[in-house]
């Protein structure tokens, strides 16, 4: 049986469970179904999602610390440990242990980022966990059929996948002497709200192998590299990933293997949300085109659907309402001849 094109979904910061990607999957499928150019083959016949989870590594570490601190408190209290031990110490230790409980924003968001950027052991564990999940999924496929896959990473996941892929594709070969970049690589690496540069650790994002390239480039990790960023999303703003015009090479740019996808439409307050990005045609259309490795949805169609999308966002609708209301504005001395049609039109809105 043939293999479907695997879409690995890599989550961002936050407290993610194994089912974290359900909403993103639905968004992608829903958008796909709206294009006749694509949906003559049902989504499920050609694509399969593989959610990647690395939050469990952060959580395991947090639990370790929580338990260590709690155990120390238990030990002190349990033994009345040392006579004269201030009961306050035990109480303080319990407070410290509770502080690492997972339901605080600091623990589930900020600490994860800090641990990834500043604790090399954590970064090493997280990257290996991601690689293992990718290799497991790839080796579970039918080995005598073509293998195609893509990655959609969000927020902190962009930094994680950048590092994980560079390390995998620069690693020394196994006993077989293989070259991974010549065996398989993602067709598309979609970096949504890309923080790979601000979270850069031991590998320069502009010099790493996590770059787009043709099959003739022996080191390029992917064919297409997409960088999607929202004008109002503050997360990918600091040290934003904005490569020079010749990154990774002029030839690659000429072949349109690097796709920059700036967006500005606001559908909801949380503009950093993965689904919010994916619903925007300027993001999902290039994703579909790159995964299919052809211009399935052309520029004119994109222009049309994007205009339609923008028109239904609150800001555009608000602008439209203002323009409409302006037509019906009445002056202080308006006559009934102009008052009546304006009132009628207003009441019909």
């Amino acid at each position: 049986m043939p293999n479907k094109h695997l879409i690995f979904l890599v989550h961002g910061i936050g407290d993610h469970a194994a089912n974290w990607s359900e909403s993103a999957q639905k968004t992608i499928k829903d958008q796909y179904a709206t294009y006749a150019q694509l949906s003559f083959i049902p989504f499920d016949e050609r694509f399969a999602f593989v959610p990647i989870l690395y939050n469990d590594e952060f959580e395991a570490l947090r639990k370790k610390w929580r338990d260590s601190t709690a155990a120390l408190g238990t030990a002190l209290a349990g033994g009345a440990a040392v006579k004269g031990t201030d009961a306050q110490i035990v109480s303080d230790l319990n407070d410290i242990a509770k502080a690492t409980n997972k339901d605080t924003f600091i623990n589930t968001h900020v600490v994860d980022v800090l641990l990834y950027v500043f604790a090399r052991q954590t970064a090493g564990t997280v990257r290996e966990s991601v690689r293992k999940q990718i290799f497991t999924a790839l080796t579970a496929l039918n080995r005598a059929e073509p293998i195609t896959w893509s990655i959609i990473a969000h927020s902190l996941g962009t930094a994680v996948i950048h590092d994980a892929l560079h390390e995998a594709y620069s690693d020394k070969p196994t006993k077989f002497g293989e070259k991974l970049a010549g065996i398989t690589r993602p067709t598309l690496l979609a970096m949504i709200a890309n923080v790979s540069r601000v979270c850069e650790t031991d590998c320069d994002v502009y010099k790493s192998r996590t770059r787009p390239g043709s099959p003739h480039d022996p080191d390029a990790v992917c064919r297409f590299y997409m960088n999607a960023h929202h004008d109002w999303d503050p997360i990918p703003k600091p040290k934003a990933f904005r490569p020079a015009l010749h990154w990774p090479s002029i030839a690659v740019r000429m072949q349109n293997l690097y796709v920059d996808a700036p967006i500005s439409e606001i559908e909801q307050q949380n503009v950093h949300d993965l689904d919010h990005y994916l619903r925007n045609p300027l993001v999902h259309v290039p994703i579909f085109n790159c995964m299919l490795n052809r211009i399935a949805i052309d520029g004119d169609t994109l222009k049309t659907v994007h205009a339609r999308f923008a028109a239904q966002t609150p800001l555009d609708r608000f602008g439209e309402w203002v323009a409409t209301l302006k037509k019906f504005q009445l002056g202080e001395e308006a006559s009934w001849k102009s008052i009546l049609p304006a009132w009628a039109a207003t009441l019909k809105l």
Partner: protein
Amino acid sequence: MITTHAERGAFALVHGILAILLLTACASSAYALDAATCAAREQAGLAAGVPPSGVLADLATLCYGISDDANPLTKEARAILDKAKEKDKPADIVKLASALRLLRTRIGEDATLYEPTAAREEFRVALERYEADVGRGVPAGTGFTSPLQWQLQNGDTLPTAPSLHLRSVVDEPCRADLAADACKLALDRGKAWLRAAVLVESTLTLYAAAPLDELRKRSELRLAMWHAYRDEALPQFPWEWILNSVLMKESRDKDTAGQPVGPQPVPTSQIIFLHPGVGLEWRDEPDDAPTSTDSNTQPIMYLEILGRNRWSWDETTGKMIGGAGVSLVATYADREADDDVGYGLIFHSRRTKAYTLGVTRSGDTTNFIVNADLAEFFKDRLAYWREAEEKIAAVRASPLLE
């Protein structure tokens, strides 16, 4: 280590669920489209106004050359690939090379179907090279073994056959009339080229299967090592975790762009720094005070000021080997007439880490300390010890012994 089994159990459970989800995803990632469905999808695509080359490109790896394809060439090549597969072993390279030879021969035999001629010639030359490298066992992904070179680019060309343009082959003849004979022949030609490419790519993917398996195994081992570092080395408080990170040296080679090569190696040592704990202290003479009720054994608080723990890795299993360390320790026991802080050494061994031993001096007294596995020890054993000590004291105080 604290709650080792519970932790491992919980972590194993999470990973088990994840593995099941992954396998479920992968199990559903193979999907057979039968000939009728393929034909229906083709018609639907053409009816939707998708260019014929786009329809064929999208259906290529779902319908043409795949194992369910009833085409005679596919059947012939697939029969060889089926024989080349070996359970838990690399595929038979002689058979894989013969599959490539078969494709070269068949393409060369049918000049009508495999048009244009230049592309046919490029296929012949490329397949000769690939057959040679596969037959010689050239490492997968190097030389002429890469399946990526046979993937359709931009829905139009193959890296190995730049003269082949699917759009020219299919779209031009079909522009006027999709039902015309010329269009039907063009569609057949397009499918034939895609079928050939998919069969070559399939052959080379099978050729690369063993190395890909090895990469997965290596990743599994490395992850097991990272987990052992976290779970089987001495537990680290957050400040120790950060300190050990800072002290991890960048030992990787650099590539030509000055970037590190491969993953960060898993550490083989850890620094112990300001690590607090609770244990027991034993001394021969409990106290000098004549009225003292202190026992020989007293609970203590201690602080490992600075120390180091080392181990090595079994690269074939990912298991931690050895594991021994020592640290400078300060202890405090609230004895009735002696509450001096003791200083000494505490010794760690992974084999006996539930009961780490140490020796200290406080004042002019030598003390032996034991660091119990904190929570478990104090919950289970200290209560028992205290109870036993109280019973002994009660017996001693009994009038029967007077």
